[in-house]
């Protein structure tokens, strides 16, 4: 069956540390993997995407990796800050899916000062 899974437990880390969130999927072949941030009561906001032929992508303090063999993406926030506290969602994207993204449940991240 097709599944997309993110860390089920909430992640609590200390300010300044690196947060690492995982997104695993089975029986999909996405061309892109996207990461979004969602704050309580708000809509998801696009952060970063990585293509299937890319291993790593960076944007400021964010880094995403994509391993199509393991069917896994890792999302890292370095030098984390309390303002990074939010839920982070991964989404699978490929042109053949009628432009519909497949969403993970999200991982809640709390960065403690």
């Amino acid at each position, binding site marked *: 069956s097709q599944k997309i899974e993110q860390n089920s437990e909430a992640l609590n880390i200390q300010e300044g540390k690196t947060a690492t969130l995982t997104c695993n999927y089975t029986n999909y072949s996405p*061309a*892109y993997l*996207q990461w979004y941030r*969602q704050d309580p*009561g*708000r*809509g*998801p*906001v*696009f952060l970063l*995407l990585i*293509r299937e032929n890319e291993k790593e992508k960076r944007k400021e303090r964010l880094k995403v990796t994509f391993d199509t063999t393991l069917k896994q993406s890792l999302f890292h926030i370095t030098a984390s800050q309390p303002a990074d506290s939010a839920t982070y*969602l991964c989404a699978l*994207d490929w*042109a053949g899916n*009628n*432009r*519909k*993204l497949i*969403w*993970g*449940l*999200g991982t809640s991240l709390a960065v403690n000062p």
Partner: protein
Amino acid sequence: EPEVTQTPSHQVTQMGQEVILRCVPISNHLYFYWYRQILGQKVEFLVSFYNNEISEKSEIFDDQFSVERPDGSNFTLKIRSTKLEDSAMYFCASSELSSGANVLTFGAGSRLTVL
């Protein structure tokens, strides 16, 4: 920065009443979506809309739901006869027509409470 706007931000209604949620997508975007998120649960796809017609809909999007683009700017979701289980946040999103990744821009959401 262009944004997707949604109204109302919160609507309370009685079971069985009709509700219309409104969205103004980003002006040069051509794909429009409605998603739903029940409290504590995942973002669920409802429907996508392109070229003035539904391109895909989920199992959730039954005959009680309809979408319309009545003019060049608005995109609406109508729930004909609301049920308690329709209580959720409803997010509108839009995206550009692109041969590459389908990056969505979401609105802030409309919270629907059905009593």
